[in-house]
C-alpha cells in the first residue's frame, strides 16, 4: 500500500501545477465571499465556518477526478486491479495520497484564511481540527464517486452531483463545530461526530470504491 502512496506523491511532486490549482481555488473562493457580502467583521465571523468549509468541499471536488483518471488512461489502474495486493488496500493508498496532496494543504491553509474573516485563535483551532478530521472523509467518499464516473461523459459535473449530497453531514458537523464554539457550547460533540464519520468512511468506502472500480474496468 505504501508503494501506491509513494508513487502518487512522486507524481504529484512532478506535476505541481495540478496540485497548486486546487489550492489557489480554495483561496480565491474563500476571498470571493467577503467581496460579495460585505466587509463587516461581525458578519464575516459568522459566515466564516460555512464559507471556508464549502470552499474546502469545492476545492476537494476539483481534485477528485484526477484520482483515478490518469491511472485509467495509461493502463496502470488495470495493473492495480490485477495485482496480488488486495485492491481495497491499494485504493486506501490512493485515497491517502489524494488527501496528502489535496486535503492536507487545505487544512494547513485554513487558519490563514480564517484570519481574513477575523476568527479568533480558538475558533481557528476548532476549524482546523474539524478540517483535519473532515477532509479525509471527503477524499474517501469522493473516491467512490470518482470510481463510479470513471471515463463517463460529463464526468466532472456528474461527479459533483453524485458526491455533494453525500458531503452534507461532514459540512454540517464541521461548520457546526466552529459555530457551536462561537455560541459558547463547545465543539466536542460535533468533532466527535466528525471522528465517527471518519472511522466509518475509512472502513467502508474503500470497499464501495473497489466495487465501482471493478465495474468501471470490466
Amino acid at each position, binding site marked *: 500500500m505504501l508503494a501506491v502512496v509513494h508513487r502518487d506523491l512522486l507524481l504529484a511532486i512532478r506535476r505541481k501545477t495540478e496540485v497548486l490549482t486546487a489550492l489557489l481555488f480554495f483561496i480565491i473562493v474563500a476571498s470571493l465571499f467577503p467581496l460579495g457580502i460585505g466587509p463587516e467583521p461581525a458578519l464575516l465571523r459568522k459566515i466564516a465556518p460555512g464559507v471556508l468549509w464549502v470552499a474546502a468541499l469545492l476545492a476537494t471536488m476539483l481534485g477528485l477526478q484526477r484520482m483515478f483518471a490518469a491511472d485509467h488512461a495509461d493502463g496502470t489502474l488495470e495493473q492495480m486491479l490485477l495485482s496480488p495486493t488486495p485492491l481495497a488496500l491499494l485504493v486506501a493508498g490512493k485515497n491517502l495520497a489524494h488527501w496528502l496532496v489535496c486535503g492536507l494543504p487545505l487544512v494547513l491553509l485554513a487558519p490563514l484564511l480564517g484570519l481574513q474573516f477575523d476568527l479568533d485563535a480558538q475558533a481557528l483551532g476548532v476549524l482546523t481540527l474539524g478540517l483535519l478530521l473532515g477532509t479525509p472523509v471527503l477524499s474517501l467518499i469522493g473516491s*467512490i464517486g470518482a470510481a*463510479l*464516473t470513471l471515463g*463517463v*461523459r*460529463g464526468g466532472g459535473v*456528474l461527479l459533483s*452531483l*453524485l458526491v*455533494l*449530497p*453525500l458531503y*452534507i*453531514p461532514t459540512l*454540517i*458537523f464541521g461548520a*457546526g463545530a466552529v*459555530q*457551536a464554539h462561537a455560541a459558547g457550547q463547545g465543539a466536542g460533540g460535533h468533532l466527535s*461526530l466528525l471522528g465517527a*464519520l471518519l472511522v466509518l468512511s475509512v472502513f*467502508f468506502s474503500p470497499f*464501495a470504491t473497489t*466495487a*465501482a472500480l471493478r*465495474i*468501471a474496468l*470490466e
Partner: protein
Amino acid sequence: MSNGIVHWLKFASPASFYPLAGRMIPWFTALAVLFGVAGLWVSFFVAPTDATQGEGYRIIFVHVPASWMSMFIYLVMATWAGIGLALNTRLSAMMAQALAPTGALMAFLSLWTGAFWGKPMWGTWWVWDARLTSELVLFFLYLGFIALQAAIDDPRRADKAGAILALVGVVNVPIIYFSVKWWNTLHQGASVSLTRAPSMAQTMLWGMLLMALCFWMYAVVMALKRVRAIILEREAHTEWAQQFAQVPA
C-alpha cells in the same frame, strides 16, 4: 414447494415478465383510481377544517404521502438494484431504473407542495426545516442516480454502477437525515416547522393513508409501464422483442 419456486423464477427473465407486467397494469390502475377518489373525498369533505390553519392545510394530504412514497421508493429501488448486483440479474436492475423517475417525481411533489403550504402559513416559499431539507437531498440523490445511468453507455455497467450508488445512498440517507436534524435544532431561528403538523384527527390520518396508497399504486403502475419500455429497448435485438417492432420490415 420447489415447483412453486421454479414457477416464480420464470418471471425473472425479461421476456416472461413483459406480458405479466402488462396484465398487472390495469388492476393497479384501478386500485390507484379507487384509493385516489376515496382519499380526495376524505381530504376535502370529511376531514375537518383546522382551527389554526383553515382550509389551506389540506395540502398535507398530498405533501405527506408524497414524502412517504419518495423515501419508500428509494428503499425499494435500492433493494432491487442490490439484488441485481448480487445475483447478476438484469430484470432487477431494470426495475430499479424504472422506479427512479417516479421516486424523483414524488420527492419533487413533496418539495413543491411543501412550498405551497409554507407560503400562506408562514409567508415564505421555502423553510429550512429538517424534513424539507432532507427531502431536497433525497431529490438530489434521485437525480444523481438517473444522471449516472443516463451518462453510461454500456447498460450492464450502468446497472451495476447505479446499484453501488443507490446502496451508498441508502446507507447515507439516515446519516444525512440525522445531521440535517441536528443542524436544524441548533439553528432554531425561525421556529416554524412543517413537521409540527396540525394535531391529527382520525379522519386526517385516514385521508393521508388513502392518498399514500393511491400514490403507491400509481408508482407501481408507472414502474411497470416504464420497465416494459426499458425491457423492449434493451432486448431489442432478441427474437421475441422483434414482434413489437413498429417499423415494418
